[in-house]
């Protein structure tokens, strides 16, 4: 091979961005086209540096906007290369048109989405507004709760997305700053182990295969559009979840680290539970353990995969629980929160008649403290004791000013 390998320590102290950049290096991504934006910049910067230092055989294209970045990624993926990039917030918003092109054209691009608030007011810190904004775009969405998972899920994402039965792009989410700029110990794979796990890229319908000419990005009107969209949805609903399970199992065999579509923590006998995403899942786990010492049977459910929605696993995880708090780190702007709606939809036809309440928290990087979570678990227990939701269905955590509650 025409590139150098890197000697890594068994445990490296990396932030989430560094972990993602190292995974892109180890996967030997052919093309990264990027228009860097805080807080995702160090991922593409890291790829560019590895490339310049001779650790990657590939191409780094600096383009004039995020729209151009994803467009160039689409071109490179259609040509037949392994492709990845990174963005956040406003960058994703500008990219959003092309995200639908990528999924519709069945191009397995990996996008590291370092979650950040959307303006206005302008804010560079972490929330899930950008993740939610493109949830119907046809991309698979993984969610990392810490730097280790940013590394692992990148390697996993290539395997899932590029499988010829899948051929769909995938996003790896991590919390801006709270994960992307927080350094923690990350267990590494050697370059050879990581590359062997991801596997050689096998193109499909690649445009550079001149023996087999193909057309990408066609126009279909009412004659075929619906069939294309229905088949894309079908593959997301039917094929992706078994494939993710299979790749998670292979990853566990290799590393001992076990991932699940829905991550359950102390849920077997839980009376009350918090459902959330991102770094909050880990903080909530710590608080749940503390609540158990105080006699409250608390558990935590974290969505590892947000799209396709792991419907059956949500039903299973929440079976038997008495009160659920759905925590959304994004303003629903005129509705109940997304996780509230997903959970309500999943449980509605089941025998689980838990008391479900929604909370909006952490916008623009506002801290979610252990004290907030302690109060939240106590509130859920009060709901259980009263046999009904004692508050309004939608509340805000950690916002200053008069208490806000709706529905």
């Amino acid at each position, binding site marked *: 091979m025409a590139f150098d390998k890197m000697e890594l*320590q068994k*445990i490296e*102290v990396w*932030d989430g961005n560094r972990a993602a950049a190292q995974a892109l290096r180890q996967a030997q991504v052919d093309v990264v086209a990027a228009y860097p934006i805080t807080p995702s910049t160090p991922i593409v910067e890291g790829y560019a540096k590895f490339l310049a230092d001779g650790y990657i055989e590939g191409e780094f294209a600096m383009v004039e906007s995020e729209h151009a970045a994803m467009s160039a990624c689409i071109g490179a993926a259609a040509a037949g290369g392994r492709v990845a990039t990174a963005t956040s917030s406003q960058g994703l918003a500008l990219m959003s048109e092309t995200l639908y092109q990528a999924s519709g054209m069945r191009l397995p691009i990996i996008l590291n989405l370092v979650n950040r608030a959307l303006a206005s007011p302008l804010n*560079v*810190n972490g929330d899930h507004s950008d993740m939610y904004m493109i949830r119907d775009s046809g991309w698979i969405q993984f969610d990392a709760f*810490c730097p280790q998972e940013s590394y692992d899920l990148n390697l996993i994402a290539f395997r899932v997305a590029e499988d010829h039965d899948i051929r769909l792009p995938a996003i790896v989410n991590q*919390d801006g*700053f*709270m*994960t992307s*700029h*927080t*350094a*923690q*110990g990350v267990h590494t794979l050697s370059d050879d182990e990581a590359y062997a796990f991801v596997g050689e890229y096998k193109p499909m319908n690649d445009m550079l295969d001149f023996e087999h000419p193909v057309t990408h990005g066609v126009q279909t009107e009412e004659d075929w559009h619906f069939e294309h969209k229905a088949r894309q949805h079908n593959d997301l609903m039917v094929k992706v979840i078994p494939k993710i399970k299979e790749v998670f199992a292979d990853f566990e065999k290799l590393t001992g680290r076990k991932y699940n579509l829905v991550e359950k923590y102390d849920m077997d006998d839980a009376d009350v539970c918090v459902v959330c995403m991102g*770094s*909050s899942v*880990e*903080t909530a*786990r*710590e608080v749940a353990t503390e609540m158990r010492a105080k006699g409250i049977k608390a558990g935590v459910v974290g969505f590892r995969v947000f799209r396709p929605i792991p419907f059956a696993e949500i039903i299973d995880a929440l079976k038997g629980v008495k009160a659920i708090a759905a925590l959304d780190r994004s303003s629903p702007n005129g509705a109940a929160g997304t996780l509230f709606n997903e959970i309500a939809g999943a449980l509605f036809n089941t025998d689980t008649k838990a008391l479900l309440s929604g909370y909006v928290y952490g916008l623009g990087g506002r*801290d*979610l*403290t*252990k*004290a907030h979570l302690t109060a939240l678990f106590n509130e859920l227990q009060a709901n259980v004791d009263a046999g009904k939701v004692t508050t309004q269905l939608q509340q805000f955590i950690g916002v200053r000013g008069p208490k806000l509650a709706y529905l």
Partner: protein
Amino acid sequence: MLEIRWHSRAGQGAVTGAKGLADVISTTGKHVQAFAFYGSAKRGAAMTAYNRVDDKVIMNHEKYMKPDYVFVIDPALAITTDITINHKDSTKYIITTHMSTEELIKAQPKLEGKDVYTVDCITIANETIGRAIPNTPMLGAFMKVSQMYDIEFFKESMKRVLGKLPQKIIDANMLAIQRAFDEVK
């Protein structure tokens, strides 16, 4: 759980210092976390960085902390910012200043009765590294105050962390760490 809060100006190396410290501690088998509050910080703006150290995996991602140690690596920040916020009785302060500890406490009554150590990291950095980058000397002072590791082990570890820098810069940092270790009071 050991928790540290750094007070710094953007560009003085608090984040690099926090990550470097985390890197060294990680090699001894402990779990670490290093992060910072950035905002849209410009070079020179006051900022804070943080370390957490524990024997078990650190799951807490809240930014709130009651620190065991407060490092102040810019002399003016001891005066202009609230370095005693979320104080606990056992909190130790290591503050960069040209003043003696007594002079500093006299000038800043909020430090009265607190466990304060002083060291002039700026002068040490200027005289050894040739630039006012007070992060590595602060770690030398921390090794003295906390007695966390033998100073020779710490310096050897920092040589690896500083890795790809020119040898001259690495040597200068070692001098800076040793001087701060010797001079902190």
